[in-house]
């Protein structure tokens, strides 16, 4: 419908002369946005009057109830403040966190130099050296418990130097405390595969006066199948100093070895 006809129709409606068919057309034009409701004079006047009507405002008790409800909700929120943040807030934060993580990994991968590998092994060696030093100095202490700690430190070392095994033998052969000597013997067991350690253990048999150490050594020799130790063990059997029960047990070990 052209503009003039629309204006004519609106004018006719405003005069109150529009018939039902024309009102129906008018509705269609309103729906399509070709006629604005403000163009319909009487309806606009009525609408304006309706808008001007004041329906008042809620009572003060509504205000009180609302603020009491809000306060109670805030109290609940303080009691349990966790709530999932909305996706709008969470998404960029998650993206940033993931990106930082990926960049961190990438930077770590690309910036890793071959020197770092050798640096790590150098550090490991330093730590091992420090432990060794600590162990040697603890072995010099008067307190038996300090010396026990020193002996147990060897358990934390992977490869030990000759200094350590020498110190352990020195302890096994000379320490005044039987417990420390026994601990030293146990500490030496893992290194018994080394020839020098096995020989040291055989030599140590003769210098032991404690029956418990003698017995442990004899059992260790049997377990290691160390035939070279038979003569040393036999000396213990022949000795008058060795208690009879120990002699019997050593004899059994000798039998195993022979």
């Amino acid at each position, binding site marked *: 419908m052209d503009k003039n006809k629309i204006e004519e129709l609106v004018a006719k409606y405003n005069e109150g002369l529009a018939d039902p068919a024309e009102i129906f057309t008018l509705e269609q034009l309103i729906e399509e946005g070709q006629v604005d409701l403000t163009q319909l004079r009487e309806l606009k006047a009525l609408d304006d009057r309706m808008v001007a009507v004041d329906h008042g405002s809620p009572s003060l008790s509504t205000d009180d109830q609302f603020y009491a409800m809000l306060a109670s909700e805030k109290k609940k*929120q303080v009691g349990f403040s966790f*709530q999932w943040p*909305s996706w709008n807030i969470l998404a960029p934060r998650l993206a940033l966190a993931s990106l930082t993580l990926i960049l961190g990994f990438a930077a770590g991968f690309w910036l890793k130099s071959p020197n770092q590998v050798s640096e790590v092994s150098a550090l490991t060696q330093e730590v091992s050296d420090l432990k060794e030093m600590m162990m040697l100095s603890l072995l010099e202490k008067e307190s038996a418990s300090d010396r026990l700690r020193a002996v147990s430190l060897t358990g934390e070392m992977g490869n030990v130097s000759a200094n350590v095994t020498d110190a352990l033998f020195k302890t096994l052969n000379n320490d005044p405390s039987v417990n420390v000597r026994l601990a030293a013997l146990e500490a030496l067991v893992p290194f018994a595969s080394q020839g020098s350690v096995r020989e040291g253990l055989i030599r140590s048999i003769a210098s032991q006066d404690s029956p418990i150490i003698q017995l442990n050594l004899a059992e260790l020799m049997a377990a290691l199948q160390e035939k070279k130790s038979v003569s040393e063990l036999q000396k213990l059997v022949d000795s008058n100093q060795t208690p009879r029960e120990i002699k019997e047990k050593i004899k059994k070990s000798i039998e195993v070895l022979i």
Partner: protein
Amino acid sequence: MGKVRDGDLDKLGLLFERYKRPLYGFFYGMNKDQELSDDLVQNTFFRILKYRHLFRGEGDFKTWMFHIARNVSHDHFRKTKIKVKEAVEKWEDRLGHNENQAMDMQLADEHQMLAIAMEKLSDEKREILLLSKYQEKKYKEIGEILGCTEGAVKVKVFRALQELKAVYQQLERRM
């Protein structure tokens, strides 16, 4: 409202102060009961608080609020069943029954007469006119509330105003 949703509940106080009057006006326009309108305003804000996490922040708050307000109003009348559905075409019959009431209003001013005319309309027509008033003629937003197009809202407003005019003129003649 976005801040309320994210935990800043103090901001709901500001929204309440800003919108309590139009909301009350909408309810009062629908039911003409001050106490009930107070309760419905309270219930609407209770639901806003309870379902604040559902506010997506895409449309404006007022549209969302009136959407909830409609539901609150409908739920209330569904529960209490005090509202008698009135056939749109039978408003003239009701005029006859309330003749005395209309006569009593002889000295009433235009606003009062308009209020009476509004009461004669069906719930649907009264609601569309009140939404048009309190949503400040934002027909697109009203369409979102009612679930129809902007054009359909305009036609509904047109029909409601036409009927309001007819009732109003009839009341004028009777006075």
